[in-house]
């Protein structure tokens, strides 16, 4: 699936809920299914700063796509769900597609104040970091 197909799929899933709290509950439940990130990858280098909660992101090139790993500290369940959604959309995609992705699903799923918490929670920085990986790996492949 392309990045946009995955985004459309998520939008459809969230359309099932009217209430913001139900959407948040769904995000929390998604977070519980996030594949574990190796403890050894939870380094200061991989830490996304500027958060109230601790959040990490790591990436590796697998063939011609990037695979992302992420996690939050265990109690930060909303952050973990949001990381999980971002990884679902951007992981296993081509570097240039990641770098150029327009993440329209975030406002469309009506995450409302979660977007603010993205800022407080450093999720905006996380998106930026994912795109930076995309740019770095595209640049490498051009060389």
């Amino acid at each position, binding site marked *: 699936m392309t990045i946009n197909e995955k985004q459309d799929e998520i939008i459809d899933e969230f359309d099932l809920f009217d209430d*913001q*709290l139900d959407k*948040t*509950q769904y995000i*929390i439940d998604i977070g519980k299914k996030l594949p574990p990130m190796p403890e050894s990858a939870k380094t200061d280098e991989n830490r996304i700063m500027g*958060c*109230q*909660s601790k959040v990490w992101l790591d990436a590796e090139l697998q063939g011609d796509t990037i695979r992302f790993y992420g996690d939050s*500290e*265990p*109690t*930060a*369940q*909303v*952050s973990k769900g949001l990381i999980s959604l971002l990884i679902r959309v951007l992981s296993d995609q081509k570097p240039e597609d990641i770098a150029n992705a327009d993440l329209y699903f975030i406002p469309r799923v009506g995450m*409302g*104040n*979660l977007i603010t*918490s993205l800022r*407080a*929670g450093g999720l905006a920085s996380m998106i930026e970091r994912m795109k930076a990986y995309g740019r770095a790996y595209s640049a490498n492949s051009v060389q």
Partner: protein
Amino acid sequence: MQTAIAPSLDIQQIRQDFPILDQQINNRPLVYFDNAATTQKPRAVIDALTNYYEGYNANIHRGIHHLAEQATAAFEASRRAMQSFLNAAHWQEIIFTYGTTDGINLVAQAYGRRFLNAGDEIIISGMEHHSNIVPWQMLCEERGCVLKVIPVDEQGDLILDEYDALLSEQTKLVSVVHASNSLGTVNPVKTIIEKAHAAGAVVLIDGAQSSSHLPVDVQALDADFFVCSAHKFYGPTGMGVLYGKTALLEAMSPYRGGGEMIREVTFEKTTYNDIPYKFEAGTPNIADVVAVKAAVDYIGQLSKEAIAAHELELLHYATEQLSEIDGLRIIGQAKEKIGVVSFVMDGIHHQDMGVILDQQGIAVRTGHHCTMPLMHRFGIAGTTRASFAVYNTKDEIDRLVQGIRRVQKMML
């Protein structure tokens, strides 16, 4: 804890004075519990701002036209209102600032740089806001002074025996918070001041939180400096007051150079204006200063004692209700508190708590509340904080309790 006096205020009527409160957030009526960060503004304050801009906006003090005179009169009337609000002996002892932070920086620079020297000691407490830590650290770095800290006990009270042990001939300045923004603790500042004076030190009291919740009498306290921010007591943002005793203010160097603070300027030498103008360089924040009188008058109409009694009742009720929630731990159980309840919950990050309470229309603050050393003291990264003002109700506390239970259920 203190005993609450039955409040005589009509809270529903008071709520009508605050236009912002009548709104829905995420389809639920707003519950505003972030009052320690900033309070909402009554209609009288909003009207004072618009009346100024619509009716008599002009630069103050040296204008000879009608509007300038009117603006100057309103500006100076606010100074008198603040003099009375803090019970200062003289109007000249009220200096307008941009807020508490600005007032502390003014004292650190204008008093500290003039009178503190290498080896002199400054005492602060372990529950200070960063704004009452960093300016002193900067001063210590520049002047070679030493910063000492009064520790905080498990309940959130200052350990006064330790304070006694810190005081010495080297102590030149003590700067402590009157009421903690993170814990709600009301510190025994009168005793702290007496002891500092006995050791020959001057004392600054950070009144950012206390000014809205407790009657403040700078003369009864014998405070040398007292700083506060208008936006914490229903007034506008970007406006605050530094109270200082006349003799100290007169001995201090100016803080900023510019217009207003001078008597005569030549290229060879400038002489400075008298207090308070010596510390008010440049065009001040006239509109917000003018509007602060409306805030002070509003508090006066309700009476500070009645506001304090109402908030105390809310504090007791919230403490009792929140204590019944499994896994919830209140941080800060001092003997005397203002209406601040900070808490942590097993297995739930404060950020998630804040986000999901907001989705239920409840505004709280989460994080370290600009008191990182205090969070370290309690071994936590942050708390969720509900802080009350005169317009809050027990029904709203019930909403908070339900909201927390909902968050708990969602995280299971």
